[in-house]
């Protein structure tokens, strides 16, 4: 009888702030995946400022090297080992051989820990943790300087800067300890983060971008060439195609605000149109700001679909 459903217990509320998502959901990765992942690297631009003492990313600068690229006149202090004696014999000018320089870069991984990331199935926060873990592992494995910063209404306690694979375990623990936050302010967080890290770097934002303040103000301060920004837009299939019907009272997971609606076909079509325009607007904004934009659905398997997708979008090489 339906009577027993009248006083049925309501569905479980989203996780409260402060409770970790992933501790009871198993490890983020297995070792085999990490070994396969190690063969990849983050695609960083030459324009980024890095430290040539380590790292594997190509640098815009030229340094004296045995691998010839071009010459420049010898100046006092240059290492005589890089003097091109053959050129000196032909041209009677002492020239030094210059070659490609490699550098490490600052990799900033910003993970949205707002409560909206904890709604849906599978959880977007889980996928965000996996993505940040994978990208962070790549950064550490390739000697980049890694910063991991979860954020809600503001940037929380962050991880890094860290360099070297020895910090991987620490990284994973940090990521697993990220707890949902009550709400989110993407633009404010990005702007504040840009001011705190003037040296720039490769910035990856993992977020559902469901924030009232938009994205444009934050991206304005993350302009190239100092910054290379990747926006990984985590989407839930239910956000795009909500399988709801009838009279409903929708409650915002972050603000608690409620909206009474009777969902019929016309309303759902209008919602789908609004969601499409919202995504297209974000994509246009990113393109205008020189930001790479990659929408990712939360139910995509990480290794089989997300990583190849990022590889195809040249976010990974």
């Amino acid at each position, binding site marked *: *009888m*339906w*009577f027993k*459903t*009248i006083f049925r217990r*309501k*569905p479980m*509320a*989203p996780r409260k702030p402060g409770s970790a998502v992933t501790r009871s959901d198993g490890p983020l990765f297995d070792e085999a995946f990490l070994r396969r992942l190690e063969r990849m690297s983050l695609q960083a631009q030459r324009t980024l400022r890095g430290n040539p003492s380590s790292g594997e990313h190509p640098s815009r600068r030229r340094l004296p090297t045995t691998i010839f690229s071009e010459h420049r006149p010898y100046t006092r202090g240059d290492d005589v080992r890089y003097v091109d004696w053959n050129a000196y014999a032909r041209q009677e000018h002492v020239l030094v051989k210059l070659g490609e320089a490699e550098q490490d870069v600052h990799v900033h991984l910003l993970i949205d820990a707002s409560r*909206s*990331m904890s*709604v*849906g199935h599978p959880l977007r926060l889980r996928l965000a943790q996996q993505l940040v873990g994978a990208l962070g592992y790549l950064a550490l494995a390739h000697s980049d300087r890694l910063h991991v910063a979860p954020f809600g209404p503001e940037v929380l306690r962050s991880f890094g800067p860290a360099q070297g694979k020895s910090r991987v375990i620490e990284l994973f623990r940090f990521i697993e300890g990220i707890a949902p936050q009550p709400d989110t302010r993407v633009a404010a967080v990005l702007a504040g983060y840009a001011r705190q890290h003037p040296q720039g770097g490769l910035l990856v934002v993992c977020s*559902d971008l*469901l*924030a*009232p303040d938009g994205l444009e103000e934050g991206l304005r301060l993350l302009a190239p060439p100092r910054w290379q920004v990747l926006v990984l837009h985590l989407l*839930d299939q239910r*956000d795009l195609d*909500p399988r*709801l019907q*009838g*009279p*409903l*009272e*929708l*409650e*915002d*997971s*972050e*603000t608690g*605000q*409620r*909206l*009474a*609606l*009777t*969902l*019929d076909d*016309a*309303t759902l079509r*209008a*919602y789908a149109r*609004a*969601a499409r325009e*919202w995504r297209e607007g974000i994509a246009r904004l990113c393109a205008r700001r020189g930001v790479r934009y990659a929408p990712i659905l939360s139910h995509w398997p990480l290794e089989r679909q997300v990583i190849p997708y990022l590889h195809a979008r040249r976010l990974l090489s």
Partner: protein
Amino acid sequence: MSLLAPLGLLALLALPLIVFLHMLRERRRRVIVPSLLLWQLVPQSRAARQRRRLSITLLLLLHLLVAALLGLALARPQWDLISFGGQRHLALVIDTSISMAAPAPGGGSRLEAARSRAQALLGRSGAGGSITLITAGPQARVIDSDRTGSARLVSALAGLQPAGVGSDIAGALTLAEAVLQGRPGAQIVVLTDAALPTLATELGGRRPAVPIRWETLGGELDNRAIVAFAARPRPGAGPVQVYARVVNYGSGALRTVVRLYGDDTLLDTRPVTMQPDGEVELTWTVPRSIEFLRAELDGDDALPADDRAELGLAAYRPVRALLVSEQPAALERALRAVPGLELTVMAPSEYRGAAADLTVFDGFLPAAWPSGGVLAIHPPRDSALLSAGVAAPPSDEVTFTPAGAALFEGISLGAVEWGPATPVTPPAGATTLLSRAGQPLIVRWQAPGSTIAVWAFDLARGNLTTRLAFPLLVARTVRDLTPPAVPASALAGATLSLRTDPRATTVEVTAPDGTATPLAVDPGGQALVTFGQPGRYTLVELAGGERLYSGQVGVNAGAAFESDLRPRPVPETVAAPPPRGEREEAAQPLWPWLVALALVVILGEWVYVHARRLRGFAEG
């Protein structure tokens, strides 16, 4: 269909509760979404914003059906099998008062309208039932009872006539309930013009045991009537004062005349003017020689019968008395003072058994009791007519028996010395009216053809004859031993218990229409005379072929409670619950079927819900 427990219908209050629960169920389901950011961009149609609108679902209808069935079942409904062709027992109470002679709206009299309606009911009642015909005239009477459609009932119905003044509806209902007691499907139908000012009083608080349906015939009618007509004769041969009251039961003022006739001779014509619902009182003084009066109102109204009133003026019945005494002086004086008494005095030696209405023996008794009234005073001890008793010891203490209360009421006998009394043993059936020390002083009994009273004391040796009580006691004894005069008037339909001369064997009653009906007089000297028609009745008492007495009675139809033809409110049609036994026979309970149907619906709903759930699992 009837409900045995109507309070069970309160269970139907569950219906709105179910609707409320469904509205609760239809309340918007709360869904937590990541953000309302996108939802707020959706243009919302009016229909989409509409809230708390109850949708009519199959489940709701089934629940309402189940609740309604169970609620009805709690009220314990039952089919009345009589409504489906069962036996119906009907009691038809027809008002036969004089007012039913007034015209009915459809033409004809109200009684004819009632007759037509009754005939229709006779033909409509179900087969196998019975109909009892009861008239509610001055006295309620069961006319006949037979099966439905009986020709005998139709014939009895056709013979109904207005029976007189007054309608004993309450008595008729009691008769009907008694007739219908224990019969299934019983019903009483009352056909009346409701011109009964005292109906509400008569039926007030009555709880009928049988359902009663009232059908009112006739409407508002104006009427004028002589509702009172009386005379007060003066002592001696003086004139007689006559009084009449005329009432206008109408909505308009009336100017008319009242004519007074004395022995069919016009004595006076009196113009009268009456306001609506007004009345006029009239008086006349007429000579004593007139024996019969008639007043006529020039009414020209709906009920002519009450426009006429008649009145007999014979206040006293003539008594021929014979006094047989050696010393008659005191008795003679007392007897001659009795109005209407014609006295003959003789000595015992002269007595040869002469016929008289009243014979008084003083100190003497004949060999046999004469016919008529007999008063034996101080009878001799050696008489063969009376057994001698035992002499009582001397005592002044007398005992009045309850039977003598009417004789001695208001008469002071405290200072009376009764003197010595003859010890008398009264015969069987005699009533002792006064005794002393267990010995009867005054005793009375009825013998064939005679009414006898014995005064056992000796008037000459006591002081009774010197007391004021003596002529009073003599006059009352004369009236006790002789019958009274017939009443001056009576209401139509009234039944008169006529006390006749002890010698009378037959009373011949001649109605106004000239029909003469002989009535036998019972051994107690009583005859019941019913005055069915308004007019002049003549009563003649006969002893064999001898005419003993003749009197005239004016029978009138006008009465304050009958002549007002305007209908009064009748009680609402009452559907009394039939007795338990009858209920069980005539009713088929419905509640088990309703409960069974509700269970079937619940089972169907359960199957429907679970089938849908299983289908959902299979698809999932």
